[in-house]
């Protein structure tokens, strides 16, 4: 069994590696110090199981798990955590495997033999209960079978077209399957609804303009795209621009 260890603390990783080495059929293929590295390592080494710390800098374990679950062959995930009473009850109710640090060998063995793949519903439920869970730092898109991560602060807009949502960001455009409504709810501080089919990054708004037919548009910084503003959302945007 190929295993990936993810924890931002070196001693914690060393300990897990030491314990796993004593088990049969377990091979630690890589270690990662945060969620982003975990995702990269997962794509490179295709582990069967990821031991994932929850509280990590950059991208935390819950967000990493969510991106991992989009992979073609997602690994099984066991969360490790030192202490967090709120989240633990959520883990229990949703039958998600977790280990408390310092991890006991017998618990580790048990968890490995029982490890299953997580589904999105489980992850979402935990994310809601995990009080310290911050807004995700990345959006993940599948590009040619790989997971591509797009940092949220490089995104200019989301535009819904047919079944997909186009993400406009620094390096171009990419399609994702999430709905605009979910995106709006997950990033209330970063994005603003300007039209039934569009969200705009608040930090990237350059100007609100009116054309000679009386329609309003939003011009973005560092991006040629001009987005139409619907009459319904105009008052909110005006109010926001005045601030």
């Amino acid at each position, binding site marked *: 069994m190929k295993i990936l260890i993810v924890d931002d*603390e070196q001693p914690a990783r060393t300990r897990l590696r030491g314990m796993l080495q004593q088990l049969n059929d377990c091979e630690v293929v890589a270690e990662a110090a945060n969620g982003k590295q975990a995702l990269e390592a997962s794509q490179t080494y295709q582990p069967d199981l990821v031991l994932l710390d929850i509280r990590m800098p950059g991208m935390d374990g819950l967000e990493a798990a969510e991106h991992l679950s989009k992979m073609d062959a997602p690994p099984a995930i066991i969360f490790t955590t030192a*202490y967090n009473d709120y989240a633990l009850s959520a883990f229990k109710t949703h039958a998600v495997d977790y280990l408390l640090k310092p991890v006991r060998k017998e618990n580790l063995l048990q968890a490995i033999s029982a490890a299953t793949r997580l589904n999105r519903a489980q992850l979402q439920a935990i994310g809601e209960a995990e009080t*310290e869970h911050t807004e995700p730092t990345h959006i993940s898109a599948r590009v040619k079978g790989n997971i591509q991560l797009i940092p949220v602060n490089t995104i200019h807009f989301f535009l819904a077209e047919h079944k997909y949502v186009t993400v406009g960001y620094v390096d171009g455009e990419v399609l994702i399957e999430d709905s605009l409504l979910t995106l709006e709810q997950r990033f209330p501080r970063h994005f603003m609804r300007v039209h039934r089919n569009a969200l705009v990054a608040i930090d990237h708004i350059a100007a609100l303009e009116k054309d000679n037919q009386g329609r309003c548009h939003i011009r973005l910084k560092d991006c040629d795209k001009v987005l139409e503003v619907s009459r319904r959302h105009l008052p909110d945007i005006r109010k926001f621009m005045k601030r």
Partner: protein
Amino acid sequence: MRLKRSTTKCDDLFLPDFCAMRMVFVVVIIAQLAAFVLALAPLDIPLAQRWNNLGMISLYVQWCALGSCTVLCIVRPWLCGMTNIQAGIISYLLILLVIVLITELAYWLIYKPGYEASQTWHIHFLLRNVVIGAIISGPILRYFYVQNQWRRNIQAESEARLQALQSRIRPHFLFNSMNTIASLIPAEPQQAEDAVENLADLFRASLSDARNLIPLSEELELCHRYLDIEALRLGERLQQKWNIDTLPRDALVPPLLIQPLLENAIYHGIEPLTEGGTIEVTGQLENKKIAITIRNPLNHNSGQQIARGNQLAHDNIRERLTALHGKQGSLQIEANEHSYQVTIRFPYQNEYEDPDRR
């Protein structure tokens, strides 16, 4: 080394210490007010006569008052072992005795040589003075008793508050440290041993009596022990910069006054940063006031989280400072996009204040 708030053995006695200058002064004031009342009370006396009377009455009343003070000061050690009721009755009787003695003295020294006074006049004079003295000194003793009860309530309340506010170390830190120690045992037993010793010191401090104050040097030592443990876990990610040379090491502080601020700085400042950062501790003494600032870098994505998570520890420290120093103790927060800093200020104090003189 621990310093316990100095407690006189007589803490339970309701009577204040009449040997203290302040109490003598209070008694003199009360006596003089009584003398005014006695001089004003009789009707149909010419003003000049009234002034004359006031002089005599004051002299007499002050003698009684200071005499009682002296007696109560002398018998205080003896009253200490008694219940409040016993001590109350005995001190009341002693005051009356002093009044009898002074009245007799006044009669034999002043009246007898100057005036022709009858035996009945002598008895009336004595009885009248004792009754007036009894009526005045009773409520005064009662007043001291009520005031004493009130002060003890206040003290009990503030001690209870201090204890409730006692700093607690985050469970998160405990379990992370345990995990670190578990991983160090096979490879680095010496480091593991040090970590266990440091952890023991920290928990001893957090379980100690919250009313005890410790010298700043000891608190700083605890801070270093705490940071040593965190450094094992965070490695290169945790950098420190100390600039506290001018801080008086003998200043008294409640235990774990500064450590929770460092814990916050690590939990909210260093841990969320992939590259880590530097915690800066600056301290200075100015105009007998100590100011200590703890500053940490900030991951601006988690700005909102910071405010919420920090709140508890900050409120706690602020309340402990106010409980100890009143308005002179403060905690101030300054934050911008990239850094977060907390400053605590409190008066420099290197010995316990006598609670009676506060």
